[in-house]
């Protein structure tokens, strides 16, 4: 019996991967994303220079053999800064998204399941939160907490919780009248059991897709914040900050902005496509 079980799980895993890779573009996106992530993780190994190594004599060098993507106005190697910068952008984006997702899902599910006044109050609070653009929110947070990585992460978390909660709530509302929930109630399941055993696993596919998309938008938010001078501060590299720094040199030394810009673009593109692919692959009932 054990053997049979692991066989079936293996079959299902293979099936899932096959469905995920059905479209070529999804495979391309996965590869791109993996390359970026690995490059960023192994920045120490790959980067030829430190992110902070300045050599004023070597400023504004175009992409060459010595400096793969050129140097910026302070003689720093852009390629190395991009690798280290990726660490900041990606880690804040991913971490903040995961935290806000967990919180949002829990709050949204509970709110939907209990309904009534509880639901109303929570949703109105979120409405207020959602009416504030993330950037304004970030400025407000920066004003109270100060600038820096933490403040950027906080801004992302607070601005993305409402959407997650909304999504989870919508899913739960659709689910909670399903007969299998009724069946569980009829067999003495407690509310907690129902939420954790039935509701969460069933809303997870949609949420997972949303998560990949939110990671993408969080990276944009973090980058925007750095661009504006909030969030991550110099000399910490971060893609948005690099974009901002290159602003003044856009005409003559466009590569200072283009390079981090393109990598940002590729990251977002691949996350979006992976999100789409996951959505198609995760529904156990979807067949050819």
């Amino acid at each position, binding site marked *: *019996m054990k053997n*049979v*079980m692991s066989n*079936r799980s293996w079959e299902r895993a293979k099936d899932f991967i096959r469905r995920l890779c059905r479209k070529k573009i999804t495979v391309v996106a996965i590869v791109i994303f993996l390359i970026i992530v690995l490059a960023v993780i192994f920045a120490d190994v790959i980067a030829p220079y430190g992110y902070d190594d300045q050599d004023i004599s070597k400023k504004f060098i175009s992409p060459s053999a010595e400096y793969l993507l050129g140097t910026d106005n302070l003689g720093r190697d852009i390629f190395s800064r991009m690798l280290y910068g990726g660490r900041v952008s990606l880690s804040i984006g991913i971490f903040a998204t995961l935290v806000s997702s967990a919180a949002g899902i829990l709050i949204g599910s509970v709110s939907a399941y209990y309904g009534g006044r509880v639901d109303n109050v929570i949703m109105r609070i979120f409405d207020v939160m959602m009416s504030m653009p993330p950037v304004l929110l970030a400025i407000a947070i920066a004003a109270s907490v100060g600038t820096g990585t933490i403040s950027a992460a906080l801004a992302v978390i607070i601005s993305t919780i409402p959407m997650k909660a909304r999504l989870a709530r919508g899913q739960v509302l659709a689910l909670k009248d*399903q*007969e*299998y929930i*009724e*069946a*569980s*109630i*009829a*067999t*003495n*399941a*407690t509310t907690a*059991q129902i939420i954790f*055993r*039935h509701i969460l*696993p*069933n809303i997870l596919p949609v949420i997972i897709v949303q998560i990949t998309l939110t990671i993408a938008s969080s990276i944009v938010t973090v980058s925007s914040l750095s661009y504006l001078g909030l969030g991550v501060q110099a000399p910490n590299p971060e893609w948005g900050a690099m974009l901002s720094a290159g602003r003044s040199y856009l005409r003559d030394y466009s590569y200072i902005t283009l390079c981090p810009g393109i990598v940002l673009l590729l990251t977002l593109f691949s996350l979006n496509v992976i999100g789409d692919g996951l959505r198609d692959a995760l529904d*156990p*009932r979807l067949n050819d």
Partner: protein
Amino acid sequence: MKAFVETIGLKKYFDTPRGTLHAVDNVSIQIARGETLGVVGESGCGKSTLGRVILHLLDSTDGQILYNGDDITHAGKAKLRDLRKRMQIIFQDPFASLDPRMTVCKIIAEPLYNNGMRDKSMRAARVAELMDTVGLPPRFSDFFPHELDGGRRQRIGIARALALNPQFIVCDEPVSALDVSIQAQVINLILELQQKFDLTYMFISHDLSVVKYISNNVMVMYLGQTVEYAATDTLFGNPLHPYTQALLSAVPIPETRRKKDRILLKGEITSPINPEPGCRFVQRCIYAEDVCRQKDPMLRAVAPGHQVACHRAGNL
């Protein structure tokens, strides 16, 4: 006959933006131990709601529910937990009533877990036993519901309902979504289980032939009310309410050379929102008279064991 499951004047009303929906209106039933009450009617008659109210999946608005002589209408939480082990439900839709993300054995094991059986091997043994009882081969144990066909999915639902050794099961259209040849298998299974475990059933269906086959007594509902209630042979042999007559004549019979003597009702089935006084069937009834529009017909016994709610019963 001492009723095992009984309701007295049971009512369930819903508040809707358009008014009060009288889903179940003053329904009284008595089911003896080991017997089956068939509940028939079309959309909006309230049969599914009735089943759920008895099981406390919905709160009743008025009236009483008695289980083995015990008034359980306002049962508290602890009492309800205990009752739930003895009253179960089989659903119509084998798709919607099983969690698509749980395997077969997890679905059947859930009631066991919820009620304190925490030992994994005990659960596994009981699940194996239940799967055998309902005719599910053990290899389906870690399949997902969508990987099986309707008939097998329904067996999973039955196994789940049996898990806690219930005494009373509400069968809510358990075979309506199944193919004819599978229907027959499941009907026979349900009957077998009744014999084996001394089960009492409330069998809800719109399919009169199935209800006739499986029930001892039958209740016909229309727009929330009981219109006729009698032993199976009596009701099918001598239907007295115009709706029952129309219902019976509407069923297409799989036989050739039958005279087409069909009663065709006019109009549509309405919904029981803010009902007017008078008989609710009056708009579609070919025998309607003034009294039918003005006074509510009471459910009364026109013969021993045969109740009808019609002013003109027996005089049509």
